[in-house]
Each structure stands twice: as structure tokens, then as C-alpha cells.
């Protein structure tokens, strides 16, 4: 579904990704794991066209993403939950969801019901201003906003960042349910132990390069990952 081939990208003279290749197949849940500053966020930004790659190519459902301007990527079926959630703090939860449906407004009412079914808590909080939601609720709202466009591919950038441990559990539970609903998910995470329990496959990104890939079970069992990231 999504293919990233030999992508090099960065900001100005600084490169954050070097010759990165990866693939996500329809229906899959794939993670890109790695430490802070490895280039995970940059990778998602390249996929949703917020930054242009310097080299390499991206294809989605067989078509190149190269000619697309950033705001048309959503209507191609890629929704991006950005780092730090980035809700509109002074809009209500429901208005945030409305923004997520900007390109698919004709099916807004039906989508809203589906998304509320997945996030009953948001339905209770629908009229509340997003900036006053708890951290976990904000993350739910950010994911729900992305789901409003009924994306074929959901990009999640560190959904567990900055949340209390017990809330982290519930967010990963949610991600598991979203995968079970049949969405294709590419998730970027530092919380390696948790995310590998949710996804099927993963890539390990270090200093801008993919250094390992394999099934979640393989990576969980890999000695260097256990040593460097899981403290075993």
C-alpha cells in the first residue's frame, strides 16, 4: 500500500533520514521504533508531504506521492496524527472532529457516530474545549480527528508521549482496537515494549537509518534491542 524507497530527507543542510526504505501492506500494523532524535517524526512528515524528500520516492497504492501538495494527501487516504497531538485548543472536541472531516464532509454525520462508538468518552466531552481535555482524552481526540476522514492509512506519531503510564496502557489498547477494525496503521514510537505488542512488524530506526526490521516477535527477542531498549 505504502512504499518508501531510498528516502533521504531533512531540514536545510541537516539530514534526519538517510536512504530509508520501508513498506506497509494493506491491513497491516507496522511500527517504526527507535530512540529520540532518530528521525521517526521526520519520516512521517515526509510521508504526509509536510516536508519534501531530497532523494528517493514514495508511492501510495501504486501512485507516486511526489506531485501532491500537502493538503491533498488526506483526500488520497492518508491521515496523520502529529507529534504532541496538536488539537485546536480553543475549538471544542467536536469542532476538532469536524476539521478532521473537512475533505469528507458529506459523510460527516455517519463518521461521527462511528468514531464516537470507538471513543465513547469523546462523546461525553464533545462540547468541551479541547485545550481543557486531559492528556489521554486529547490523544483520543487527535486520533479520532484523523479517523474522521476514514483514512486507508493512519500515521500515528508517538501517541504515548507525555501520558501517565496507566493512560499509556489505554491508548495502546485503543491502537490495538483500531488495527482490529481493519485500518492500516504506521506507528512511530519510543515506547518499544508496548508498541511491539500491538503491531505485526517493525523497523528499528537509529540516527536516520533503518538498522533492523522484522516481525514484532523477532524484534522483541533480538538481543541488541533487549539490551539497548528494553533494559534486559
Amino acid at each position: 500500500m505504502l512504499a518508501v524507497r531510498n528516502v533521504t530527507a531533512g531540514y536545510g543542510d541537516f539530514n534526519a533520514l538517510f536512504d530509508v526504505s520501508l513498506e506497509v501492506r494493506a491491513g497491516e500494523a507496522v511500527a517504526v521504533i527507535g530512540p529520540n532524535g532518530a528521525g521517526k517524526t521526520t519520516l512521517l512528515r515526509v510521508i504526509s508531504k509536510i516536508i519534501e524528500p531530497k532523494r528517493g520516492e514514495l508511492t501510495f497504492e501504486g501512485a507516486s506521492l511526489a506531485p501532491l501538495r500537502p493538503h491533498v494527501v488526506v483526500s488520497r487516504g492518508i491521515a496523520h496524527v502529529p507529534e504532541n497531538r496538536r488539537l485546536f485548543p480553543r475549538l471544542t472536541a467536536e469542532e476538532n472532529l469536524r476539521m478532521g472531516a473537512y475533505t469528507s464532509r458529506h459523510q460527516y454525520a455517519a463518521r461521527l457516530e462511528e468514531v464516537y462508538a470507538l471513543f465513547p468518552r469523546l462523546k461525553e466531552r464533545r462540547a468541551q474545549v479541547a485545550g481543557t481535555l486531559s492528556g489521554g482524552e486529547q490523544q483520543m481526540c487527535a486520533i479520532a480527528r484523523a479517523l474522521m476522514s476514514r483514512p486507508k492509512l493512519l500515521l500515528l506519531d508517538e501517541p504515548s508521549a507525555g501520558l501517565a503510564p496507566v493512560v499509556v496502557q489505554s491508548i495502546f489498547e485503543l491502537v490495538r482496537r483500531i488495527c482490529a477494525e481493519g485500518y492500516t496503521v504506521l506507528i512511530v514510537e519510543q515506547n518499544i515494549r508496548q508498541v511491539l505488542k500491538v503491531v505485526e512488524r517493525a523497523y528499528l530506526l537509529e540516527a536516520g537509518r533503518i538498522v533492523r526490521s522484522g516481525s514484532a516477535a523477532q524484534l522483541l527477542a533480538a538481543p541488541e534491542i533487549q539490551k539497548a531498549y528494553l533494559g534486559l
Partner: protein
Amino acid sequence: MSDIFDIYLLEAVLNGLLLGGLFALLSLGLNLVFGVIDVVWICYAELIMCGMYGVYYLHVQYHWPLLLAMAASVGIVAFLGWLLHQFVIRPVLNAEPINQLLVTGGVLFFLQAAATLVFGIEFRNLGVTLPSVRLGEMSFSAARLVAFGAALGGVIALYLFLTRTYLGTAIRAISQDRAIMPLMGVDPARIFALTSALGGALAGLGACLLVLQYDVHPAIGLSFGPITFLICVLGGLGNMVGGFIAAFVFAQFIAVGGFFFAVEWGYVIAFVFFIAVMFWRPRGILGK
């Protein structure tokens, strides 16, 4: 004696209310543009001037029906707002705020000079006189009543647009987080252009209401520009609710101050009040 005193005071308060409605409408467009695009249109009142000339020429020279001339002028000023954004603001969107002020200040002088060249320095009058409305012993200008009603209508229509539609919600959202709008499938450049046209349309509506009460001349902007800007600052620049409240407060100072002293004193008192508020809350009544 005391009865008469009270009724004239009441008249002043009600006139202040009517004036406040007009001020509220004038401040709305400027506030909308600043709140969304983060650029102050120093030349806002000159856009109003263009709209007033539009109504005057279409109605008086070309004999269009007044309402049609007004509708066309709203459209013309909306287009001017769009032009202003595309050709003047857009190139300096990421420049220093002082440069943004300077370019719109340049447009102010450009429009003033262009109007002097094209229309001359004569004061031009629509020649429409609306009667005054008597209520007991009080009298009100019908033009002010119409302006108040239209201003209130404009405020309500804008409120509904901003809260009930996708586009309106996007306009509010973009002022909160410009960078992620593309992730929502929204092209920020398009929203900016649209907001500018909308700001222009509000200036055009203000022009229609002002031209009913005042003569047009190339420097008319100076009579309303500073007040409009001060009201926006008083309410908290970019805060439309604050601007709305400030418009009525400011108008009351002018009207009631003018009642107790002289009309000119009304303005003096209002500006002293403005300066005092700036000491107390430099970012305005509802500013953050």
C-alpha cells in the same frame, strides 16, 4: 427640569448604543483579518473609503438603485481585500511585523493619493436624507438606526458563519495552529485569501452604512481608521468578542461624554479612557 435632563441623557445613551453598533461592525473586519492572518491592515479605513466612493458613483453618477450600488460596493471592497492579500500581504507573510505594518501603511497613502487623483478633493454627498425618528421627546437619525440594525445583522451572520460552517471553523482553527492545517486537508493560502475577502466585505458593509451619514472625501479614512484600530486594541487585537464590547464602551464615552461637556470632549474622554486601559491591561480588555 429633572425629567427633561433624564430624557436627554437617555437619548445620549441610546445614540451611543447606535454608534456602538457601527463601531462594532467596523472593528469586526480588522479584527477578523488580524486574528486569522496576524497582520494589521493599517489601510482598513481606506478600503472603507473606496467602498463609499463605490456606492456614491454607482448610485449618483450611474443611477443604479441604492441597494444594488451597495451590494456591488460590498463585492468590490471584498475583491480589494483579496487583492491586498495576494499582492501586498502574501509576499511579507513571514516578514517582521514592522515590515507588514509598513506595507499596509504604504497602501493607506497609495489609496488616499489615488482617490485624490481620481475623485478630487471635493466632499461628495449621496443626497439621500433619511428622516429622523421621534420617540417621545427623543429623536434619532434613521440612518443611525439602519446602520445599527445592519451592523448587528452583520455581526450575527459572521458569528453563525464562523461557528456553523466548515469554512468558518477552519478560519477559527487556522488562527490556533497554522502549521497543521494541511493535515486536515485545508490549504492555508486559500483560507487566508478567503478571510481577506471576507474582511474586505465587512469593510464594504461599513462603507455602505457610513455613506448614509457622512460625506465622502479622500481623507475620510482618517476619521474612522484610528478609532477602529483603537477599538480593536482596546478589546484585545484579534479578539472579536473583545472588539464588540469595546465598540459599545467607546461609543458610550463619546456619546455620554459629549452630552455632559461638548461633542469634542466626548472624544477626549474616550481617548483618555483608552490610554488608562492600556496602562492597566496593555493587551486590551480581553487580550491574552
